């Protein structure tokens, strides 16, 4: 039993690591293509048919590029920072149930690495730890643009973590559990049972905060070229930069999974679509949404970002929680 458990866990970890690394790479291809189409361009076309091998080419380039460390940097921290980003992004996935249970040769597999009863908080917490990657990178680089990027990281992540937490609080109150599997099971009754109908405001807030936490366009201030060169990543090159990149895309997938599980019915069967496919469709919708928004919207100023967080989103989230509480108490 114990050995089987260990083997199963290791296999799951490897699958998640490999799959999501690959998916992150693929997502970059998708992003470039979709952005290009939305801007009446073609995107990568040369490597492979329709540029599909561009991912591979990028990978080769990143791996073979010189790993450059500036003289003024604090070496160990500088080196470890990208690993933190990537690692936390993957650790956060440990508590996410990706698919419904399935059996292979009479052995039931639960596609979740660790089912803990504080799963949701764990995911959010570990994603919060992800802020150390950019933060330490910026502080260790010995470069003022990096430092500015790090400062922006700190304020943006810290502030929007509050909104994420508060917006998720209302669904948590309704479901009465922090385990994501419970969330999924709560919405098993079909589209009508989805929490998004009960908590539309929480859903929107969660999405906005998700954009901010994954450092996506309207809120991509950490590495905004016109202002801080490339932010915390200014001094990075090669695979270390690639790790930041993978971490970011993995975080996008995490947010996609979270949003699907909490608000959009998770991996329950949707009409004729089996659950596994349904959740993949939802996650890819969210990925597409991230890209779509990047193509459509300009980004905001840092002070607007803070203002939006503390004076608009957080009060709305608090009011939402209070109203939810009142409704639950009296009805």
């Amino acid at each position, binding site marked *: 039993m114990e050995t089987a458990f260990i083997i199963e866990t290791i296999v799951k970890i490897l699958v998640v690591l490999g799959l999501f690394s690959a998916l992150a790479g693929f997502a970059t291809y998708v992003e470039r293509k979709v952005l290009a189409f939305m801007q009446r361009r073609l995107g990568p076309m040369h490597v492979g048919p329709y540029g599909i091998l561009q991912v591979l080419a990028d990978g080769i380039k990143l791996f073979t590029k010189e790993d450059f460390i500036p003289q*003024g*940097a*604090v070496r*160990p*921290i500088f080196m*470890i920072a990208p690993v933190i980003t990537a690692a936390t992004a993957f650790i956060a996935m440990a508590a996410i149930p990706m698919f419904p249970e399935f059996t292979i040769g009479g052995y039931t597999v639960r596609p979740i690495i660790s089912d*803990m*009863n*504080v799963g949701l*908080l*764990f995911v*959010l*917490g*570990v994603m*919060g*730890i992800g*802020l*150390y990657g950019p*933060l*330490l990178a910026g*502080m*260790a680089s*010995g470069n003022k643009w990096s*430092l500015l990027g*790090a*400062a922006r990281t*700190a*304020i943006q*992540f*810290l502030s929007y*973590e509050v909104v994420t*937490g508060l917006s998720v609080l209302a669904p948590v109150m309704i479901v009465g*559990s*922090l385990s994501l599997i419970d969330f999924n099971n709560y919405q098993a009754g079909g589209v009508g049972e989805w929490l998004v109908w009960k908590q539309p405001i929480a859903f929107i807030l969660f999405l906005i905060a998700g954009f901010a936490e994954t450092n996506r366009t309207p809120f991509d201030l950490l590495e905004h070229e016109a202002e801080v060169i490339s932010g915390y990543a200014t001094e990075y090159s090669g695979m270390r930069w690639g790790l930041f990149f993978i971490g970011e895309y993995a975080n996008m997938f995490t947010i996609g999974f979270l949003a699907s599980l909490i608000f959009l019915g998770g991996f329950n069967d949707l009409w004729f679509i089996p659950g596994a496919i349904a959740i993949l469709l939802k996650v890819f919708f969210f990925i597409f949404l991230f890209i779509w928004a990047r193509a459509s919207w300009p980004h905001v100023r840092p002070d607007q970002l803070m203002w939006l967080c503390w004076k608009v989103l957080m009060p709305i989230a608090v009011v939402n929680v209070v109203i939810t509480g009142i409704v639950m108490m009296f009805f």
Partner: protein
Amino acid sequence: MFEVVAFYLFAALTIVMFVITVMSKNALYAMSSLAAGMIFISAFFFLLDADFLGVVQIIVYSGAVMALYAFAMMFMDTTKEVKENNPPKRIVFFLSGMIALLLVLILLTPIISDKVKALYPMSDEIGNTEAVGIVLFTKYLVPFEVAAIMLLVAMIAGIILASKRMDESITLKIDQEIEQKGAE
């Protein structure tokens, strides 16, 4: 088996991290290793079936408190080595070593009687989070509210302290500056 391995592994990691924090010349090393140590400590909480405490440790301590430290450190040059004239090592290590020794002695001798009764026994039926919630909002409601007010006060204090005018306080002024102000 797992527990033993995990305990010793994390104990070693934590101790190493904290020793780095305490001994390091570089503030950035100290901060990073401290943050790492905090996360490793949350592992103990998970081992001790205090899931919620562990998650809170990660979110609050590592996520917020240490990030605040990092943010404060951005005001200083963290890549430089911290220069300080440390007190003589012998005194420091003698004092701390003695205290460590005494503490271990005290804790190893079973002076804690076995008759301690659980006031709020943990039940297996409900999860840790729920149990914590129940105790927190019944027996510890008043301390909880007081803690909330304390946090609010701290928040307001932090905001006021960080506001622009505060570094011009008259009480902190050096005499020269005061005279200068008077002359204007």
